[in-house]
């Protein structure tokens, strides 16, 4: 029932559409008007009776132009030099290579790569960019070493210690005793002496627990006397020296 009703509606729609199109066409199509026929007017051309004035080229100017080399069109160019012919040959060869299907594409991409590399190189040089940014490794910071006041390998420890004791400068004598111990530890491969390493670093480098403990005591003494600037008299120094001598003779 519903299908029947739908078909009927479609038929009506089609009728309305035909009627609408007919109406449009009939509205557009208006009757053609017939224009009145107008008789053609005959025009007659008049002869040009004006007086002609004959003008000639200025021969002097023509001869002056002829003397100028710019107007010598038949001038023979001098023959190409050997250099020019070489480059002409190079370009001919290059054109031939490029024109070739196989080598041409190779040369084309090679040229593009070379040109790109050149541009990148110029940009990098111009901006001063560090190329190591691509490797992920940082450039080592160049800091000049501060000149060591004392190179432990050059000090005559025995003489210097005697000199300090002679001057009753026990603080300096303790410092020299400590430095001599560091030198001995380095010479016995127990530590790796470097001026920028701290005393705690040297302690960690000593693997033998007993030696480490003994050296820790010496380090504490040194730090209190040297960094702490604690006063040390002859008697205290004698005790300190005994502990250093014991460590140097027995433990090393």
């Amino acid at each position: 029932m519903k299908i029947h009703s739908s078909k009927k509606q479609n038929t009506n729609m089609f009728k309305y559409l035909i009627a609408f199109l007919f109406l449009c066409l009939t509205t557009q199509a208006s009757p053609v008007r017939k224009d009145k026929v107008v008789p053609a007017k005959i025009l007659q051309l008049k002869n040009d009776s004006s007086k002609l004035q004959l003008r000639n080229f200025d021969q002097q100017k023509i001869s002056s132009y002829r003397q100028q080399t710019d107007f010598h069109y038949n001038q023979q160019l001098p023959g190409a030099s050997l250099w020019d012919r070489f480059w002409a040959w190079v370009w001919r060869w290059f054109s031939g290579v490029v024109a070739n299907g196989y080598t041409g594409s190779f040369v084309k991409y090679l040229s593009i790569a070379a040109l790109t590399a050149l541009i990148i190189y110029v940009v990098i040089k111009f901006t001063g960019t560090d190329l190591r940014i691509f490797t992920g490794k940082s450039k080592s910071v160049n800091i000049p070493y501060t000149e060591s006041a004392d190179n432990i390998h050059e000090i005559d420890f025995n003489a210097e210690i005697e000199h300090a004791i002679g001057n009753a400068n026990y603080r300096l004598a303790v410092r020299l005793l400590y430095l001599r111990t560091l030198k001995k530890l380095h010479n016995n491969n127990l530590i790796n002496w470097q001026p920028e390493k701290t005393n705690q670093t040297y302690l960690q480098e000593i693997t033998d627990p007993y030696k480490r403990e003994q050296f820790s005591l010496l380090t504490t003494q040194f730090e209190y006397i040297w960094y702490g600037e604690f006063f040390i008299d002859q008697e205290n120094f004698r005790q300190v020296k005994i502990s250093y001598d014991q460590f140097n003779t027995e433990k090393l």
Partner: protein
Amino acid sequence: MESEIANQRTDLTQLSLAVTQIRESIGQIIVGQQDTIEFLIAGLLADGHLLLEGVPGVAKTLSAKLVAKSINAVFSRIQFTPDLMPSDVLGTSVFDPRTASFEYKKGPIFGNIVLIDEINRAPAKTQSALFEAMEERQITVDGHTYALEEPFLVLATQNPIEHEGTYRLPEAQLDRFLFKIEIKYPTLEEEVIILSRQHQHKLEDEIKDIKAVLSIDQIKTCRATIKALHVEPKLIEYAAKIVQETRHNKSLYLGASPRASLAIVNSAKAIAGMQGRDFVTPEDIIKVAIPVLAHRIVLSPEKEMEGLTTSDIVTQIIQKIEIPR
């Protein structure tokens, strides 16, 4: 022998007791983070402001709150937000119709310990309001200068990862922080302990049970002791060399200021005092070098592109300068 030599000078008994108490108080709650706790105490003793930086959830704010709670002092907290105004921090003058005059209402900056949470969420305008307070310990508003009570300590936290709605702290402000303490993730063992405590519902009770262990007077005494500690002249020169090198290092765009040199020496003294010594050693200077310098220096753009950090450069500098011995 050592005890004989060590007994010659400063009495550090009270200082050691105070350090032990505060260390234990914070250690009850914070699991691990030993370096963080050490630097928090060192900052407190060296009279410096502290910036705690870490990803969300590593107990930045909790650490700062615990330090504040351990001291019997006026504590205030400011949550920095993008719309915070300088007057919200400093205070403002309000008209009183009864007296027909303006009355100054003090802002939250007037406290002994001021916790500024998420400090990098406020714009430079608000940050700059802290400059005078942090450096000169005073506030100037409407032509009047108000002194801040001693001790005055700013504990600020910030998250380095988030960029949305945050502002980079001005260099002038960063320079006013004694330390930037970077709080790292806990280790596996530490995280297990944190979870166990939370599971047993201990944490909340433990935080509530934290009592103040130090008074303002005790803090003042400890600070005076720290100030009096001995620094050998060659070690002062060593600290100055490290800072000087930051100014000439090609990897750095901005070096550290003389305030940084002072900060190194003062905080090295605090570290020495905390370890029971009345003198500074090179290790003390090295220990504080990164937390003091890393936030005050600026990397050159190339080095930043390489992925280096300011801490790396400070480490390189330390490794190249001879230890005075």
